[in-house]
């Protein structure tokens, strides 16, 4: 029996349990591979302070002797992900890509997409397992260095890399890394597809330029909508509330400090020397004790004392939220709608781990598609009704900017969306269901350690603190949406009122004419009635409340409102310079509004809504004094925003 007992390597374990890492079926495996490679690329670029430009390519690979199959039927794909990141030095390449649990991210508390250092090597291992092909990497650390080509495999028994080929090559890129993996997979569009993943990635990462070459040969480009790199998150030490007893024991053993009190204050965040002494006193341990000597019952008392002591919440500069402006840009870029809003909550803490919740919302159809003439010109018969659409809202979830595509219903974010009473905000919702309406709900959690429910990182665990913050963020979004809808509704009903009068005047005049034997001066009567109609419904005022002549995003913070006549609010300030002039790559045409030329900005408002200039001359003077959207004005707006946020927070709590 004893002879059969032997060590199991991590790689072997995950080879057999690949579902734990998100390789349960060919379709999901393809997505996981793309995801891991893209996440790595983005993390690398951002850490090096480079605005990421990532190209993803999916190609069908012929299996055996058979011809290349169409993408929807193919079973083998080559995934190539290229970034413009800092590149990797030659010696590190094999270990990063062909050793499980090797990486820079696990041992630090800092917000990043990857956490464990399993991802990309697991993808490579999966490829190796299903196709037998090695992972091929090209990396170049700068224009002066030569590009390195590496073909690596993983020795699953030892969890060590095997380098099959290593040489210098010519590469047309000055800097960056390219990873190519051949895997068994299935390519299907729709929910939880590679396409969806990349689209959602582009929403939450508007600073990324993504180029996607689909297996059918098409190229899709997600242009950069936001030109600032997210602030680089700081690394923090563990917070005393966030560690478990075993962890404390290990830290005590590994401590470099000579005394217990200096250990406490230097290896944890928010523990001052004074507080460290206080803890020691309360736990009845000498502050001068050697950390290594604190064990057993003593250590347990220490642990309990620490948990009972009041420690300040961890610092939150280790987090890098996307930011309201960037969320708006992302949503606005990818989703067509009438109303956009975004909320960033102030940081919060669960089990000693700081986190930030951000929520966003895009509502409605584009005005142009909404006003498109309907096809049912046929008069309706009795009992017939015009069909209303009853689509449900879509929830897009993110953890540290990475879209979560699986296990929606067990995710804390999704549960919070369900638990929010959307009816309060004028949105229909049946019991236990998503709110109904043309709506996309965006929820992002940023944390140094995102509590996933499993290693495959698909759903967020439901900590009370997290749930509460998501709910508060969603409520604020909903409140703004409700305001928008109510205002729109009020204005529309006024407008409709005049419309119905106009409609009915015709009928009434005709009926009068027939009653009078057809001898009525109908035009005169019609004109008289129309005059009464417009004076009774407050003529010009209606158009103002409808937002047709008014200015500003209707007093809603961090929101974009799209009307047939123009766009109001925090419109994405800039466009990718390189492609502003190229109409072919501009994507949705709305984005090409010139916002960069700040002197002409008041002018844009006027040209977009010429009525305001004519009908309300008093308004023109106020327009230039509105906060400009240039970079300097952004600061100004930022301070106003913080003030308001603080105010809202207080109110919500």
């Amino acid at each position: 029996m004893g002879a059969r007992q032997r060590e199991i390597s991590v790689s072997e374990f995950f080879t057999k349990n690949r579902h734990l890492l998100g390789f349960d079926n060919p379709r999901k495996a393809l997505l996981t591979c793309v995801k891991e490679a893209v996440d790595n690329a983005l993390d690398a670029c951002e850490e090096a302070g480079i605005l990421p430009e990532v190209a993803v390519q999916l190609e069908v690979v012929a299996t055996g002797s058979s011809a290349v199959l169409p993408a929807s039927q193919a079973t083998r794909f080559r995934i190539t992900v290229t970034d413009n990141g800092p590149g990797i030095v030659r010696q590190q390449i094999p270990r990063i890509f062909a050793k499980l649990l090797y990486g820079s991210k696990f041992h630090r508390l800092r917000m990043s997409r990857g956490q464990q250092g399993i991802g990309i090597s697991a993808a490579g291992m999966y490829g190796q397992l299903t196709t037998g092909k090695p992972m091929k990497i090209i990396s170049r650390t700068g224009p002066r260095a030569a590009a390195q080509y590496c073909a690596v495999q993983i020795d699953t028994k030892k969890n060590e890399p095997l380098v099959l080929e290593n040489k210098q090559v010519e590469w047309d890129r000055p800097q960056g890394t390219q990873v190519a993996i051949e895997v068994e997979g299935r390519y299907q569009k729709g929910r939880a597809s590679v396409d969806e993943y990349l689209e959602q990635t582009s929403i939450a990462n508007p600073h990324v330029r993504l180029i996607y070459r689909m297996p059918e040969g098409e190229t899709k480009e997600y242009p950069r909508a936001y030109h600032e790199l997210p602030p680089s998150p700081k690394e923090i030490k563990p917070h005393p509330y966030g560690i478990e007893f075993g962890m404390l024991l290990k830290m005590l053993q590994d401590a470099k400090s000579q005394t217990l009190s200096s250990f406490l204050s230097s290896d944890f965040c928010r523990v001052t020397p004074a507080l460290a002494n206080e803890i020691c006193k309360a736990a009845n341990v000498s502050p001068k004790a050697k950390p290594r000597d604190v064990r057993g019952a003593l250590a347990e008392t220490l642990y309990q004392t620490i948990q009972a002591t009041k420690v300040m919440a961890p610092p939150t500069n280790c987090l890098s939220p996307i930011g309201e402006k960037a969320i708006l840009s992302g949503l606005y870029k990818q989703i067509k709608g009438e109303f956009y809003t975004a909320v960033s909550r102030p940081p919060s803490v669960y089990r000693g781990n700081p986190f930030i919740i951000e929520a966003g919302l895009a509502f409605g159809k584009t005005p142009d598609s909404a006003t498109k003439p309907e096809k049912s010109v046929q008069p309706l018969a009795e009992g017939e009704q015009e069909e209303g659409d009853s689509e449900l809202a879509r929830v897009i979830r993110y953890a540290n900017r990475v879209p979560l595509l699986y296990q929606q219903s067990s995710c804390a974010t999704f549960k919070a969306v369900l638990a929010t009473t959307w009816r309060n905000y004028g949105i229909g919702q049946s019991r236990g269901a998503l709110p109904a309406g043309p709506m996309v709900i965006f929820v992002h959690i940023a944390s140094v350690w995102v509590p996933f429910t499993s290693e495959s990182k698909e759903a967020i665990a439901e900590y009370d603190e997290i749930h509460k913050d998501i709910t508060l963020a969603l409520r604020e979004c909903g409140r703004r949406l409700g305001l928008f809808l109510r205002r729109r509704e009020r204005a529309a009903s006024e407008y409709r009122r005049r419309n119905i009068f106009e409609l009915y005047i015709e009928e009434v005049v005709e009926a009068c004419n027939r009653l009078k034997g057809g001898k009525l001066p109908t035009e005169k009567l019609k004109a008289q009635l129309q005059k009464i109609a417009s004076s009774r419904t407050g003529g010009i005022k209606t158009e103002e409340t409808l937002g047709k002549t008014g200015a500003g995003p209707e007093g809603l913070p961090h929101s974009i409102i799209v009307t047939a006549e123009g766009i109001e609010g925090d419109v994405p300030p800039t466009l990718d310079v390189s492609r502003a002039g190229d109409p072919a790559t501009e994507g949705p045409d709305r984005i090409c509004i010139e916002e960069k030329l700040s002197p002409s900005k008041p002018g844009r408002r006027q040209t977009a809504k010429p009525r305001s200039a004519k009908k309300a001359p008093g308004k023109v003077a106020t327009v230039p004094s509105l906060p400009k959207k240039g970079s300097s004005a952004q600061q100004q707006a930022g301070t106003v925003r913080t003030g308001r946020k603080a105010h809202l927070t207080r109110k919500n709590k």
Partner: protein
Amino acid sequence: MAKMKQTRNGTVEKKLIGLADLVITAAQRAKDPTMAIPIRALSNVTFNERKGLLEMGNKTQSRSFFNAGMAKKFMQTMLVADALSELQRAELTTSLREIYYRTKHTIQDSHENTFDTQDESDPIIEDLEVSLVALREELHVRAENGGSVVGPLLLGDDGDRVDCAKLGKGGYSVPSIVEPEYVEICRCTADFVLLVEKGTQWNRLSEDKFWRRYNCVLLTGNGQPPRGVRRLARRLHEEYRLPVYVLVDNDPWGYYIYSVVKQGSINLAFESQRMAIPKAKFIGLSSGDPERYELPRNVGIKLNEKDIARAKELLNYQWFQKPAWQAEIKRMLASGLKYELDALANKDFQYLTKKYLPRKLKEKDWLD
């Protein structure tokens, strides 16, 4: 129709044209065109105890065009007025449904129909009846022939002489307009009028030739009796001094049908002057009958919530305040059961004809 009085006809048309004038003058003065429509609800109805009938009060509601909630109704009213005046000019009569179809069209440049269902146009016709003080017949609108009559009665209709004693068991279908201009009562030798709620029981009585044996006019309205039936009963009552007995199911709705025949309806209280028969008697089915005629409890039907609520409403109506009536309704509520006329068949198919009614008439067992 040739017999119609031209002068009266002219006034109705004038009244309809008056609505157009109302719009025109309001428009000239830059005012909101508004018409006053008497309210057709309990709140605007009083029971005249001396006359024994319901009278409409003078509360009105205004319907104005430039009010988002009323604009459509106003427009519809004008359309209906137009259609009614067309009828006047062409000297045609028509049905409610035809008016609905006549006035229905899709408004130009929209998906909206002037009327979506007949439920929208019917009340407007009633509104016009009330506000123009014109009877439905005068507006040339007829309801469907909703009732039947059989018995020793000779009628003149469109120049035909109709002997209601020689019409088999089917009888004569009572037209909705039975004004003397349309239907002439040439001769009636009956002793009384029996108005039956249900067509099925009327059929039973007609088949058994009950009317021949007891010398009466048998009338039915198939449920709530339509105007034609009520008006015919009233004319027989008035012109031939015939007592009118009402035979209905033993439930709140039956009681109400009786009260409509007797005092008039709340909705069309303005017509009770012409329709109500204050001396009509309630012959059955009374809540005391099941006991007296030994109907088994199992042919009763449990009162549902609606029945109970309606019965309680009736208890509060001023015209149900007589002690006998209060006792009648309370007895039904206490038993918790209602009985259909048809339940009498439990004893015998001809129980109604041969036992129940003869005994009732003999004992003069009715309520006033």
